[in-house]
């Protein structure tokens, strides 16, 4: 490990120490955060393997986004606040309570998938009980829904908030502007989280916008704009809690930008610069160093998750494929619209 890495590590540890104190997090809290980070990472890894075996369809990875997502989850009242995530938010979904089995049923589009039951491609999240609004595959549309939900909550004088997620590419859409504008006019209780990984498919940020930070866009709306380091889960929790508190208590919306690290080309155990870019490894190293985690516990945790994933994989593979002809038909569209025309009608 080079001197620079050492120094960098020291800086991060110190920041983390400060955050855990401010946040008042217990050892159990910290371990739960770490569990969620690992769960996100290992589930994503498992999906990658299943993709290579052509069992799961191709799709995005949440590598590097774990701290952003788990961090935000730690700021919410789960099951009360409304969530409008995007396709990359695997870690968010796991952290608020979806099980690996639910994730894999969704990946495989099984009949028992409660997310969409094969109607949507995987990772278009949805959960009635967790108040996750069903996501389309379109960029930035959900930001307006989030503002609309917060608007309704304000009218009803409720204290739940809405939190929505999108990539930096999606901020180029007109809907993003319209959503931020409306939310700021009425000081709505909504948090717009931008997971900025610097690229949109193949398009780098520089071809997407002329500003260094997405959060610079907050100025156009007189709204709070925050940039936070997405490798540091405690920093994310801290920023997300501030934004949520402001939203919940009438202080209006926040544009919370989380900088996602670039995935290093190859990761080896002794490569500490790679560790620094990996939010999961980083937090593990920190907890180990501070004695909040032991190597045994770490391994046990990984084994537990792996066996849960094994079981989930088996169950998901055994689950039945969906069947529109049966009981699910009425939710296809409203009953009336189904009557209209019959395929191959002669």
């Amino acid at each position: 490990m080079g001197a620079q890495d050492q120094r960098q590590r020291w800086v991060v540890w110190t920041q983390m120490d400060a955050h855990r104190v401010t946040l008042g997090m217990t050892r159990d809290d910290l371990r739960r955060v770490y569990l969620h980070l690992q769960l996100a990472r290992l589930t994503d890894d498992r999906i990658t393997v299943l993709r290579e075996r052509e069992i799961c369809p191709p799709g995005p990875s949440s590598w590097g986004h774990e701290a952003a997502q788990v961090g935000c989850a730690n700021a919410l009242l789960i099951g009360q606040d409304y969530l409008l995530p995007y396709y990359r938010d695997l870690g968010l979904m796991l952290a608020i309570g979806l099980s690996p089995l639910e994730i894999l049923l969704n990946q495989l589009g099984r009949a028992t998938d409660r997310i969409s039951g094969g109607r949507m491609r995987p990772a278009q999240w949805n959960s009635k009980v967790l108040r996750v609004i069903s996501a389309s595959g379109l960029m930035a549309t959900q930001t307006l829904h989030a503002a609309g939900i917060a608007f309704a909550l304000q009218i009803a004088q409720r204290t739940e908030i809405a939190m929505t997620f999108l990539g930096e590419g999606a901020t180029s859409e007109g809907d993003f502007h319209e959503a931020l504008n409306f939310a700021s006019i009425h000081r709505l209780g909504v948090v717009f989280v931008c997971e900025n990984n610097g690229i949109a498919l193949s398009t780098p940020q520089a071809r997407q916008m002329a500003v260094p930070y997405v959060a610079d866009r907050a100025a156009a709306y007189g709204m709070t704009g925050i940039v936070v380091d997405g490798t540091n889960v405690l920093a994310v929790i801290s920023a997300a809690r501030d934004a949520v508190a402001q939203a919940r208590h009438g202080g209006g919306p926040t544009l919370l930008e989380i900088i996602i690290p670039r995935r290093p080309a190859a990761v080896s155990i002794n490569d500490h610069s790679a560790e620094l870019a990996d939010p999961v490894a980083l937090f593990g190293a920190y907890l180990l160093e501070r004695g909040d985690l032991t190597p045994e516990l770490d391994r046990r945790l990984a084994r537990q998750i792996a066996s849960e994933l094994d079981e989930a994989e088996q169950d998901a593979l055994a689950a039945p494929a969906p069947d529109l002809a049966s009981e699910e038909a009425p939710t296809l569209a409203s009953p009336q619209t189904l009557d209209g025309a019959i395929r191959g009608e002669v």
Partner: protein
Amino acid sequence: MDQPPASFQDLSLVEALRDGLREEMARDSRIIILGEDVSMGGIFQATRDLRAQFGSQRVWDMPLAESAIVGISIGAALAGLIPVAEVQFADYLFGAMRQIVNEAAKMRFRSRGDWLCPLVIRAPYGGGLGAGPDHSQSVEAFFAHVPGLKVVIPATAADAKGLIKAAIRDADPVLFLEPKRLYQQSNGPVPTDDYVVPLGQAVIRRVGQDATVITYGAMVREALSAAEVLATDDIDLEIIDLRSLQPLDQTTMLTSVHKTRRAIVLHEDARFGGFGAELAATISEQCFAVLDAPVVRIGARHSPIPAHPGLEQTILPNATTLIQAARYLVS
């Protein structure tokens, strides 16, 4: 309505519509109105006095952004309100099409019924006021084609009231298109009591024997006045007002054509690829054995709609067009 109600009033279409909105808002506090300039009543005064009556938490002026009007409404509906959004001209719906087609219409489907969008989008549509190519369009064909969306068009004051109530009470998104050239017209008596015109029920506006005219919106009036003229020629038209395009009442339409054996489909929108094509295709198919002549389809010429009233007339169909077509068909 099934039973004729007790008493009637004479109202313009926009007044009756407003009455419908008012009665529903009084009935259900989840209903909110939102749109550009709605607190002062909107350009056509459909929401006049509603803010005064129901307060500022029920009637909201929106920023000038149509995608936001629909997208915010979707969100509000998801959180338990029943938004009635006004889009100032139907032509602006194209700016909200992504939210309407890809979001509102698909929400029930994609969430397996977990999330519904009980929202109404109201928009004045159509020509006849010299408003030019981007303030005169008929847009029903674009939306009736979208699975998951309902499309409703009143042609009378009574229906404006009864249909807006049904639209508001529906659990799914409804596009409510208002023929703006009829706003200030009083056409037919409006029942004073609380009534609902169910979606998906056409009505026979005139009983006749020689040919069936299937139409809706502003063309209903044109059809009725054409029928008056033709009656003097001994041509007796039956006139059906569809009132709702999705769901579509095929039974009323097909039963009538089985009786008259001749059909004319009439709408103000461009003929090519218009909703009349769906109607004509269905009738041609279902009444194949009984039709005495091909179904006649009348619509606008395939052109943007000019603003100048003289020019506009050369593009849009009217009673005269129908009279010519009916004479040709029945002769």
